[in-house]
């Protein structure tokens, strides 16, 4: 699409954004090619000697072994799949709900709009993590439950963002024209308003993926992750509960840094996108005033006058 090309060109000029893209795609790569990249299969049963438990890194296990004797590096690589899946799916849900609510609230306004915004305000006031904790602990653990819980609570900021954008767009000429020509509400929204809002949604979406990944890792760390799948958060949970006293840094640190890596990459991408879509002011009034005179020539030239010859 046109939009993607434009955005890519803008990205090329921003090294931090490109760094973010690299960071994200490197993890996607790892996730996709996990079976080929991981030296061991984390699910396979292995024979372990007591000294293998929490063994420090060596030639065969670059990141050492965990409390069950399994290779940390392999778990780390496969863990990318879980974290990315949760991140992308949950944030897709978030963006979808948030955009829909925002579009409807902004476009139709009135009582529907107000009611929706009250709902948004209400959800915003309820603290997220405690509510997620309550839900999962009552409902049970599982990947889809986590995705749903994160998705159900995260859409509020997107809704607000989209709504304020729609409010400013819907009074513009081309929208009023479309409506005058008889376009239905749905058509007006989808063909005229939505494309304008899309760039902002994109920027917000990227940032929300990182939020979802961090949310999942927090829930897993606190013991509410899917016990069947080893996400980075779950690794940290095991590590914290079982390895902290031994200071097994090879088990404690890598999953966290992996989370930071992907999250930072997304944040860099997202901020760059946001800056492209919503360019920020580069200067303000309080700069160094001495520069103003740096080119001043001290000797004034002579002033010439000419008499009218007539």
């Amino acid at each position, binding site marked *: 699409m046109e939009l993607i090309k434009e955005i890519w060109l803008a990205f090329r000029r921003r090294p931090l954004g490109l760094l973010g893209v690299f960071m994200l795609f490197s993890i996607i790569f790892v996730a996709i090619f996990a079976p080929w990249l991981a030296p061991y299969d984390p699910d396979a049963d292995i024979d372990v000697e007591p000294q293998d438990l929490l063994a420090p890194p060596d030639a065969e296990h670059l990141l050492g072994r965990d409390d069950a004797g399994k290779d940390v590096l392999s778990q780390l690589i496969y863990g990318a799949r879980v974290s990315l899946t949760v991140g992308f799916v949950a944030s897709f849900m978030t963006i979808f709900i948030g955009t829909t609510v925002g579009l409807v609230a902004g476009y139709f306004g009135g009582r529907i709009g107000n009611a929706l915004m009250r709902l948004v305000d209400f959800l915003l006031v309820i603290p997220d993590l405690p509510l997620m904790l309550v839900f999962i602990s009552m409902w049970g653990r599982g990947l889809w439950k986590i995705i749903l819980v994160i998705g159900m609570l995260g859409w509020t900021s997107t809704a607000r963002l989209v709504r304020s954008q729609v409010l400013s767009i819907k009074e513009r000429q081309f929208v009023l024209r479309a409506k005058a020509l008889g376009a239905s509400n749905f058509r007006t929204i989808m063909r005229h308003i939505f494309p304008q809002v899309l760039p902002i949604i994109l920027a917000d979406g990227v940032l929300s993926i990182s939020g979802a990944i961090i949310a999942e890792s927090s829930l897993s760390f606190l013991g509410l992750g899917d016990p069947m799948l080893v996400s980075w958060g779950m690794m940290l949970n095991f590590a914290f509960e079982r390895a902290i006293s031994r200071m097994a840094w090879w088990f404690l640190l890598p999953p966290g840094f992996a989370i930071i890596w992907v999250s930072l990459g997304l944040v860099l991408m997202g901020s760059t996108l946001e800056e492209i879509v919503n360019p920020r002011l580069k*200067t303000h*009034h309080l*700069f160094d*005033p*001495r*520069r*103003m*005179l*740096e*080119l*001043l*020539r001290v000797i*004034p*030239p002579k*002033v*010439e*006058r*000419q*008499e*009218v010859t*007539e």
Partner: protein
Amino acid sequence: MTTLEVRNLSVSYLSEEGALLNAAEDVSFQLNQGKSLGIVGESGCGKTTVMMALLRLLPDAGRIIQGQVILEGEDLLRYSEAEMSAVRWSKISIVFQGAMNALNPVRTIESQIAETLRIHDVEKTKQRERERAGELLEMVGIPPERGRQYPHQYSGGMRQRAVIAMALACNPRVIIADEPTTALDVMIQAQILKLLVRLQRELNLALIVVTHDLGVVAEICDNVLVMYGGRVAETGTGDAIFNDPQHPYTQRLLQAFPDIENPHAEMVSIPGIPPRLDDLPPGCRFAPRCYVCGDRCHKEMPPMIEYKPGHLFACHLDYRKIS
């Protein structure tokens, strides 16, 4: 002594690529106490740039290339930033274009006026500062009690008057009014103009009015400076400029304005558009649009010619030779 004398002022802007764009070149004028000068020109002709240069308030990319700004005998361009800060507002003050936004929305009008008094040590006590702020508001026709209100509680015209009151606070020698009536409706415009005339008379102000509206200039200005493409096109007294314009641009400009005494006169517009800063013609800036220009006009910068004492304009006069 002349209150303000500007000599050969040139101001440029540094573009993103590092090139210098000449926004104003070789601008000179004089202003005496009790007199008013109107600076006229289309948008982009450099008039606001020159004003900002007088106060050294150009944006980050602005560079003063040459010239002198002599205020009561002292060249302000030689001052340090600290010295300049002391001069600002106390000697020269300015009423900005779009004065509506010139006020801080979370502070009262009174406090913003009183602030100027505090910065320049005009009054001794807070009590006196408040009183003086009240006096100033009264001078511009605003009830002093309203000083304790916030800008959003004032109408547009009131805000403009408040900003004028603020500009007068430290009894400056020179006041610059940049487009004081733009964005106001006609009735309010008339009020503001009457106010400026009255204040100038009562306080013996040296006033500079920057505008694109010749009507404003005709009403309140003793002298006129016509600018085009960053340079001075013509300068003289109001009478001279309006009754006997010499520069082709000035002539066309006057013709373009509807004349109430001659409703059937043809309204002439000037074809073309003002030059872009990165594409300035090498010769006379007006040559591309001039109806009487010759070859020389496109290549050489025209000199300032003194047509009559005090009435100057920049032209090669070739058209005189033709007729």
